[in-house]
């Protein structure tokens, strides 16, 4: 009887001690992490660095869905990282995380993360050691339903932002994730896949800026081939518009007292086959499109109409 009482008391004391510690531990955590449905929420103050770590995959990609646009630092690592924007009232920024579970199974899991940005803290709250207010965010694991998490040991290393000709390049996308879908990753939503955009700017940075304009136009147009290759005859003129523009500035512009700006093709076979349609799936879509155009007879636009096919502002190149 005595033994039973002792054991019960011991168990009760142990339970109280255990939960007591746990509760204390939660209190000491300063992370404001709430979870509602499938969206995790964290809070941050204006101008603070926000970091949110995910796990459970081999490749990650973050993109912003709504709210004041922020620059994501290394959006293809396991950590969502950015500087919270200046706000005067509470604002929600919603981000989407895509996780590739493993290299063999490239199925992606998606999860939304909501960051609630509050107006800047008063100066008394500023961390004087760093001179910058840093949100004390805990490593918060987003397991996205994964139980046997294969957490990658990747660490976030900040890469300097790359700017070419005044254009901020998107970060180098994770190859596995980028190639797991037909359209790939387009972080800045400009219609050109990030890896293609980076290649264009890096390849043509020393050439006349029209090279970049034409190649970017091609990048936007080729997206249609990936989306709807079966509509080849309808989209054909639009897909070829960058080449039309290129023909104008390579051959025809001189007949209109404008300079010849293109010497070597900016949009060529290499760009199409090696850079843009760089996976089997993308190439298959392109071949389907190309096959549907076979047997057709197509007329070149008159030179004076070709210039109108450039989808960028050409007046800046007129002297």
């Amino acid at each position: 009887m005595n033994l039973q009482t002792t054991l019960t008391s011991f168990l009760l004391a142990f339970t109280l001690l255990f939960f007591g510690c746990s509760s204390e531990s939660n209190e000491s955590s300063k992370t404001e992490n709430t979870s509602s449905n499938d969206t995790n929420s964290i809070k941050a103050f204006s101008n603070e660095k926000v970091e949110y770590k995910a796990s459970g995959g081999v490749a990650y990609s973050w993109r912003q869905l709504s709210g004041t646009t922020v620059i994501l630092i290394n959006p293809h690592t396991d950590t969502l990282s950015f500087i919270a924007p200046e706000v005067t009232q509470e604002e929600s920024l919603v981000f989407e995380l895509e996780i590739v579970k493993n290299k063999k199974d490239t199925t992606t899991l998606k999860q939304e993360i909501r960051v609630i940005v509050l107006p800047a803290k008063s100066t008394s709250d500023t961390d004087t050691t760093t001179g910058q207010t840093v949100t004390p965010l805990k490593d918060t694991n987003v397991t996205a339903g994964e139980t046997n998490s294969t957490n990658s040991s990747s660490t976030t290393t900040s890469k300097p932002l790359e700017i070419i000709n005044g254009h901020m390049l998107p970060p180098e996308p994770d190859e596995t994730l980028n190639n797991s879908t037909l359209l790939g990753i387009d972080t800045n939503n400009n219609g050109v896949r990030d890896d293609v955009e980076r290649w264009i700017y890096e390849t043509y940075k020393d050439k006349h800026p029209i090279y970049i304009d034409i190649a970017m136009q091609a990048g936007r147009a080729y997206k249609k081939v990936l989306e709807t290759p079966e509509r080849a005859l309808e989209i054909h003129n639009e897909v070829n518009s960058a080449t039309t523009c290129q023909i104008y500035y390579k051959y025809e512009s001189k007949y209109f007292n404008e300079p010849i700006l293109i010497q070597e093709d900016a949009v060529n076979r290499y760009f199409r086959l090696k850079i843009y349609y760089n996976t089997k799936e993308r190439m298959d879509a392109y071949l389907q499109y190309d096959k549907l155009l076979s047997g057709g007879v197509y007329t070149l636009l008159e030179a004076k109409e070709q210039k109108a096919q450039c989808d960028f502002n050409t007046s800046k190149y007129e002297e």
Partner: protein
Amino acid sequence: MKKLFLIFLLLLNPFTLMAAIDERKTDVYFANGILTEEETAYSNAGLLRESIKEKFGTTYYTQHIGEVTYAYNETHGFWQDIKESGYKILNIIEFVE
């Protein structure tokens, strides 16, 4: 009266078609070679037009050349394209993919 008007319109049609074709001008047709995808064929047709302008001058081009058109024939890969070319040289019309 209505029927007469329709007949008149039908008779007129061939003349309007003829008017669209300028017999004094030559249309240029470009046929692509092997291992060429459509956009390259398009680009090559542009080069052909420029070559004509360079060789004969823009005045001649404007007066004598009509449309520059390309007939696209897809590639089936190197060996298949060679085979297809062989059939064409031997004038075997029924080429089967």
